[in-house]
């Protein structure tokens, strides 16, 4: 029995979530772990994958049709690997790419998918949050192949130090039904939210997109932190959607999470409560965020955050 991990990468480098997914793959206890790199000119990403501890083999499929991880083509590539090697488990990171392609693979194999697992109980039994993290379901799969998305915060990153062999495989045919037209990626030198060691997050109390930037950016700069936002702040247009931390946004677990002007709706808490240290700055003493914060500061964020920047 072998486990397949679909690597998350940008062709040039591996994304951090791949390492957590490999740890989950090893924990399935089903034997060897293979990593699939499906991309275009992705040799560097494949080389990086060979160094992950616990990986027995890297499968590398390279084609311009795989450049942008289109769900149709990526799923076809995974199905080709499955047909060739008969995996017992197929694991994707629960990222935009993984969540997009994994159910396609599961449906084609006529098996259930187990979404966003946070713990592996045994080779067929997994824990996953439901109802925005208000409950944890333990589910057991009766299917021969387990197609899974892995929530990165539930598993440690796999260590480096390996020289796994690379096997080049043929690229699956293009579906011809969908085409990549372009992307607008936020350009900044900040760490990515899901990989950041420190996150500073702003809520609706910021009041406007100008204030959000004016207050949160200096703090993030000072700490070398990523910037996050509550759903309320995103809904109000103060911050772009890709900064949203919460059950329907990004799930994060940094070393330090600073929430400024965030009341702490359950759907936000679901996205950040696994952070190592949580700081809440809020002028409402009853704000639910204080019930999960290690350090709570009851203060007006417009005074407290600039003061914090000065004293760091």
């Amino acid at each position, binding site marked *: 029995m072998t486990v397949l991990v679909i690597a998350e990468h940008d062709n040039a480098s591996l994304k951090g979530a791949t390492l957590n997914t490999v740890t989950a793959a090893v924990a399935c206890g089903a034997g060897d772990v293979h990593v699939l790199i499906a991309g275009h000119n992705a040799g560097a990403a494949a080389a990086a994958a060979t160094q992950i501890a616990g990986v027995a083999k890297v499968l590398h499929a390279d084609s311009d049709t795989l450049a942008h991880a289109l*769900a*149709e083509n990526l*799923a076809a590539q995974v199905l080709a690997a499955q047909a060739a090697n008969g995996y017992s488990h197929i694991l994707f990171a629960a*990222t*935009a*790419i993984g*969540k*997009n392609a994994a*159910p*396609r*693979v*599961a*449906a*084609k194999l*006529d098996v*259930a*998918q187990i*979404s966003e697992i946070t713990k592996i109980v045994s080779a067929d039994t997994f824990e*996953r*949050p*439901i*109802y*925005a*993290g*208000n*409950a*944890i*379901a333990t589910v*057991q*799969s009766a299917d021969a192949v387990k197609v899974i998305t892995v929530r990165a915060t539930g598993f440690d990153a796999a260590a480096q130090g390996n020289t796994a062999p690379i096997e080049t495989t043929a690229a699956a045919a293009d579906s*011809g*039904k*969908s*085409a990549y*037209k372009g*992307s*607008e*990626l*936020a350009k900044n030198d900040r760490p990515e939210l899901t990989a950041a060691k420190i996150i500073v997050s702003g809520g609706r109390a910021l009041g406007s997109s100008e204030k959000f930037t004016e207050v949160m950016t200096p703090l993030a700069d000072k*700490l070398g932190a990523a910037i996050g936002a509550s759903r309320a702040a*995103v809904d109000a247009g103060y911050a*772009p*959607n*890709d900064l949203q931390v919460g*059950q329907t946004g990004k799930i994060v677990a940094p*070393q*330090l999470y600073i929430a400024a002007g965030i009341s702490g709706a359950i759907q936000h808490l679901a996205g950040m*409560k696994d952070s190592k*240290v*949580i700081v809440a700055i809020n002028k409402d003493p009853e704000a639910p965020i204080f*019930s*999960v*914060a290690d*350090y*709570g*500061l009851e203060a007006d964020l417009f005074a*407290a955050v600039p*003061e*914090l920047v000065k*004293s760091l």
Partner: protein
Amino acid sequence: MKVLVAVKRVVDYNVKVRVKSDGTGVDIANVKMSMNPFDEIAVEEAVRLKEKGVVTEVIAVSCGVSQCQETLRTAMAIGADRAILVESADELQPLAVAKLLAALVAKEQPGLVILGKQAIDDDANQVGQMLAALTDLPQATFASKVEIAEGKATVTREIDGGLETLALSLPAVVTTDLRLNEPRYVTLPNIMKAKKKPLETVTPAALGVDVAPRLKTVKVSEPAGRKAGIKVPDVATLVDKLKNEAKVI
């Protein structure tokens, strides 16, 4: 062109669910039920496409217990023209729902299927993608903008780190993200009108779909709690604690 929209009846998003003490699930007896918020966005988008003249008919579909009729009436009050309930008292998991929808796609031949990206009860985020796979249609998940022109759908998607635009041949499957639109308030006259719109009921058996669950829920438990820490009086104390106690900066 017809559009099929899938809607799910879920516990209202304002309700804080409680885990049952015997660990068999969450307590949803006497709890307010509503349309899944992402599905409401899907219905709104379909109705806007009709108002723009791109679409001729909007068909709302729900799979589940007979009370899902209420959810379908809400969809029709937003503006769907007719509704289909695939009635089943059994637990319907995402793969089963995708198969039921695939059977309806084969029957109705819509040019576009719009679904919410995930339901707020099981948080699976699967049905749209599974439906696309079963029907061999292209997909655009997590949509924040949809444009239909010249037999193609151009969809902007919310991805990690920003936005991505895809062009899909039609028919296609689209799943909605939060910022695609803001659903309208349903007005009383439209609620009254919706009561007269046609609602057809079918069964999984009539569609030839086996809905037996593939996943067994072994138990449902409360998430591990996190203890509240301490309140600090001022910024200086906070910085001191972070530096010397937590040692995170």
